[in-house]
């Protein structure tokens, strides 16, 4: 009855720097790398903000809809080529 579905094969390419990551892994790494996760307090003590709040900050910075969730446009923005300087200073 059904047309056979073509199986998507994912290959680990030798020497490839970018590893296959889930969107959530990508998001966490992105939010940390660009300064959205860490918040420095007046005392100098650093703490992590929630992923949802960090996502909202990132979405605001990038001019995306502030949903606080890892939606399609946010993932696309995280995969886009960019400068390596963090967006949020510590």
């Amino acid at each position: 009855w059904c047309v056979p579905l073509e199986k998507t094969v994912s290959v680990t390419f030798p020497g490839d720097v970018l590893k296959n990551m889930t969107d959530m892994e990508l998001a966490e790494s992105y939010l940390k790398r660009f300064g959205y996760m860490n918040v420095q307090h007046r005392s100098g003590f650093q703490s992590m903000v929630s992923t949802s709040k960090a996502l909202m900050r990132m979405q605001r910075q990038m001019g995306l809809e502030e949903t606080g969730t890892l939606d399609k446009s946010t993932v696309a923005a995280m995969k886009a080529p960019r400068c390596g300087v963090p967006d949020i200073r510590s």
Partner: protein
Amino acid sequence: YQTFEGDLKWDHHDVTYRILNYSPDMEASLIDDAFARAFKVWSDVTPLTFTRLFDGTADIMVSFGKADHGDGYPFDGKDGLLAHAFPPGEGIQGDAHFDDDENWTLGKGAAVKTSFGNAEGALCHFPFSFEGKEYSTCTTEGRSDNLPWCATTADYGRDKKFGFCPSELLYTFDGNSNGKECVFPFVFLGETYEGCTTEGRSDGYRWCSTTENFDKDKKYGFCPNRDTAVIGGNSEGEPCQFPFVFLGKKYDSCTSEGRGDGRLWCATTSDFDADTKWGFCPDRGYSLFLVAAHEFGHALGLDHSNIRDALMYPMYSYVEDFSLHEDDVEGIQYLYVKCYSFNSLHSFPLSSHPGSKTGPDPTPPGPTIPTPGPSDEPEPNTPTTTTTSPTTTHPVDPSQDACQINKFDAITEIDGDLHFFKDGQYWRLSSKTDGGLKGPFSMSERWPALPAVIDTAFEDLVTKKIYFFSGTRFWVYTGQSLLGPRSIDKLGLPSTVEKVEGALQRGKGKVLLFSGENYWRLDVKGQNIDKGYPRFTDIVFGGVPNDAHDVFHFKGHIYFCRDRFYWRMNSRRQVDRVGYVKYDILKC
């Protein structure tokens, strides 16, 4: 725009730069030109000049590197991170690094500059036709020496204009051989090599010996990438091999099969399954000019902007006819153009005659004769009439002591005096004299339309209009004439804003309005909020409370108040003092 914490910037205007190495993707003169144009972007709108050094230490050291290139901030292979730069300062500060796992171009595919031939170094014209066939890359067709070439016009048969494309058979770059071509085969550590290699290096750059024995002569250079070469993978510099076999299937062109990221790749041998040699297919690449202009913005002191069209927006996008966005111009001029400096913005002359709006003081300088008593208020030092306060105001309740108030409704500087508002009354503190605190005065006498409780106020430094905010409404007083109340959404503030809690004048006609943990920049003349707002207060004003209920300027500092305390920020946006409003400001 944003600047780095402390407004890091060069303390001189004659900034130097040095290009430490080159990318194999583009011919050196194209890279030099891209960098020079990128610096010009900034020198065109500032008094800055950029001078290139060829040795020694420059302010901005520019280099290409791959992955872990020694500064603790590794790149990540092709795409993703493109480059980074450090804010101004000594050592690595000010330096700009470009990821050489990217395909650096002028933004529209390989920029192939020719050598020799008869086109005087012109760029290849792709596609070009040669003997009835169209070519989109350099070719070795028609030659027996295996040198890749291209036409520099669309039709070689008609124009006969051509040049040779970058190849290791023509020249090398960097190294110690003055650009001499590779010699194949060559010997390295006893092994014979027939082509460029990355052996013996940890940075992945392809090199060759420029004599037949490297072990003996130690002469080498780096191989330029051919326009047909793959990027990254494990075969950098090799051409795609078509057809190739991948998972038992034959491919005649680049494919994204097997990859989750959709990027096109090819094998560089005929059988990927057996050899696993591959690389990404050449693409449009990234404009070195655009990325460099962005990075040099960092190297001059600009942080990322959240305006999508600004050069300092963190993501890359190619634009054909580049021009600097006004946000970038404002940012760089804030740092380097004197009349736009933070300090000068807040050093507008404070009138010694509050309320005088008719120009310079017509009275000759000299001692004033103070008249004792509260009836001097509000203008104890001047007999001139004022437009802001033509009626004499009187203290309404001398027993009211500002020192008993822990939290004021609003604090702002009007006519050079700090005004403290609370429940329909206000006090004044002169910023120029040590006359102490005067008041309380009745708000209803001076500004009769205002409610008893206001949330914030500011005086527009250009028009001298005074804006008052209470809840979702605002009033504008020009002398005694009044506009309002109007809804704050007329200013472009979103309907979710319940009140404006602080206001900071920021340059002529710009005021920052604070509410909750956000702030907006109001264009006072245009009566609208600038693009790119709101922003988080704690991101730009690090170290102050997120829930300040008063924000104001006073004597060149910014104050954020919460409860009875204030956080004072200097012009470098450093919190330099935290104290009590009552003791430190009111001198209770």
